[in-house]
């Protein structure tokens, strides 16, 4: 299990846990980022936000956020 921020371009993962306060978890949940969802990393530069594919949607997550989403 590792934070989303460590996925390489093209790598896939399944969300195992979303750390952070209730506000963050709720916000992410609304956008589909929640336990059990599969996603694929589209672009991960060492710093700055990441772009992930979640189903048909494309999401940008700030680096801080990305570190709170744990995937496998």
């Amino acid at each position: 299990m590792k934070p989303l921020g460590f996925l390489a371009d093209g790598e896939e993962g399944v969300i195992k846990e979303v750390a952070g306060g209730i506000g963050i978890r709720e916000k992410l949940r609304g956008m589909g980022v929640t336990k059990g969802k599969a996603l694929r990393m589209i672009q991960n530069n060492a710093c700055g936000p990441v772009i992930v594919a979640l189903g048909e949607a494309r999401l940008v997550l700030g680096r801080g956020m990305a570190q709170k989403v744990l995937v496998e």
Partner: protein
Amino acid sequence: MEAASELAVQELPAKEIVIALAGNPNSGKTTIFNSLTGARQHVGNWPGVTVEKKEGRLLSAGKTYRVVDLPGTYSLGAYSEDEIIARNFILHEKPDAIINVVDASNLERNLYLTVQLLEMGARVVVALNMMDEAQARQITVDREKLAGLLGVPVVPTVATKNKGVPELIKQALAAAGTGPREALKIDYGREVEAEIGSLGTVIAAQARLMDRYSLRWLAVKLLEEDDHLLQEIRRMPGAEDLLARWEKSLRRLREVAGEEAENLFAERRYGFIGGIVKQTVSRKTTLEQRLSLSDRIDRVVTNRFLGLPIFLLAMWAVFQFTFKLGDPLVGWVETFFAWLGGVTEGALGAAGAPEWTVSLAVDGIIGGVGSVLVFIPLIFLLFLAISFLEDSGYMARAAYIMDRFMHALGLHGKSFLPMLIGFGCNVPAIMATRTLENRQDRLITILINPLMSCAARLPVYVLFAGAFFSARQGWVIFSLYILGIVLAVVMGKLFKTFLFKGESAPFVMELPPYRLPTLKGTLIHVWERGSAFIRKAGTIIFGVVVLIWVLSVLPWGVEYAGQESLIGRLGSALAPVFSPAGFGKWEAAAALIFGLLAKEVVVGTLGVIYGVGEEGEGLAEIIGQQWTPLSAYAFMAMCLIYIPCAATIGAIKRETNSWKWTAFAIGYSLALGWVVAVIIYQAGRLLGLG
């Protein structure tokens, strides 16, 4: 006969039917709103907040209905202003029907909101939108099954082609006519249901809560630790029992489930949704590996090396478009106002109007208001370009690219756009802050925006820099732009640290697929913003214009804006304040007062005051004699920083919806301008720069 039928149509039932629109951002909700209301819409603010409120009128079979576009949200939780506004509207204003616009390609995520609407017992009609895109991705949705499982009508639509909209309207109006409907009940599992039950009995004892909310819904929300509702209950007298019971239930749930209670609810909700999706959605291809056209475009556009240059190119194109097309139009507007002034002067003179009336009309109103309304072509063109980029989906990519730089300022990626526009004109820049979801980010961006040196300040720089630094005037002017940017960064950080403590909003944003904007949608978008500017900012400008005119012509018979006029006297009174900054002359002070109208007016004013035309040599020469290079630079810095122009003040008031913040913006920029000008002058003197 005609009058009688007109009356019959206008006779409305006592309470007009209200239809609300709810849905995810990027689901096509705005397009549907436009289809329902056409040009009959009105943009304002939700009371007390800076969130845009859109309302309109639907005309169908001779009757009108009120349509309210709720903010686009992914959920109806308690942690975002948008969501609270949407939720409260549904709970307390009780719209007769809610059209839930859903993106057919993203059904699972969109249903998260739908399910919450259904749990509130709202009369929902689902618009299954963007069917064309779903088809292109080979995704099919069994509409009838979906309607059966959700228990509400589901109407497939392609809003951009106006397909399905008449049926949607029919279903919505039908739903509006039905009585209260049963709320959706999701089974949350034995333990949770037990707690809902016991908490429910305690809630039932609170009459005030029973009036406002449905029992089950409130019990569920409290167990989910909904912050907004908890605050409301804590403020209620006599709620101790309820709160005690609530804490007990919460503890029990945590023991039983071994995790945060709200996870239990989310899991069950997503489980329910997952079940629905499995039965109603099918895909021909496993798309995970397939790259859509949007993805392929993004490979280039968000590429770590190409992204920034492409972005700069796009911004350059926006400015070229705006100013190349706008400059001639601005010229026309100026000519028009000059003509209007002449005609009015002639007409009033011929009608024998007293001199003061003529002066008020021509110099005051037409001259003053005209000098500000010249913004209009620029604003419309700038917004046309920006709306096009926004509606196409490019702006989201730009926010992603700029996020790194904005982060350094303590801001959100989306703040880049208003900052950039500010170099053209601060008014549309401030209006553009609407795209920022977070109130803090919005306020900070609005407050530091006037430090972006707008196009109107350029004539002032050119005049003074030309008079004193002719060979190096380019560098001097450039240094002022840099000064503005540096101050913006510094003030941004200061505001962030002292005024808006707390974590910045988490940066999560969707990249919608690229779409070709519709002409209708873009024009409506542009018209909304442009006409709002004219209406609101215009009233403040008008007031200021008349005031300055009054100060220039009184006491009666005095030379217009001369030293003996009120403005001249005001200038003389203020002049000593500016002597530490090196320009303690009444002319400078008076010019600064006029600069309140519009910054380029400073030049014209100095021309009038010194008794020479605006044109080049005469004014520059006098300036050269009466000022020193150092005081000139300090003066330019003052022009850059001090008080935003009247139009900008109008825009700030409009976007912040608060006199307090508007006054703060005025106050801090005046103070900052003075401080910086003084520092420049005094430091320069110390360094022997003259």
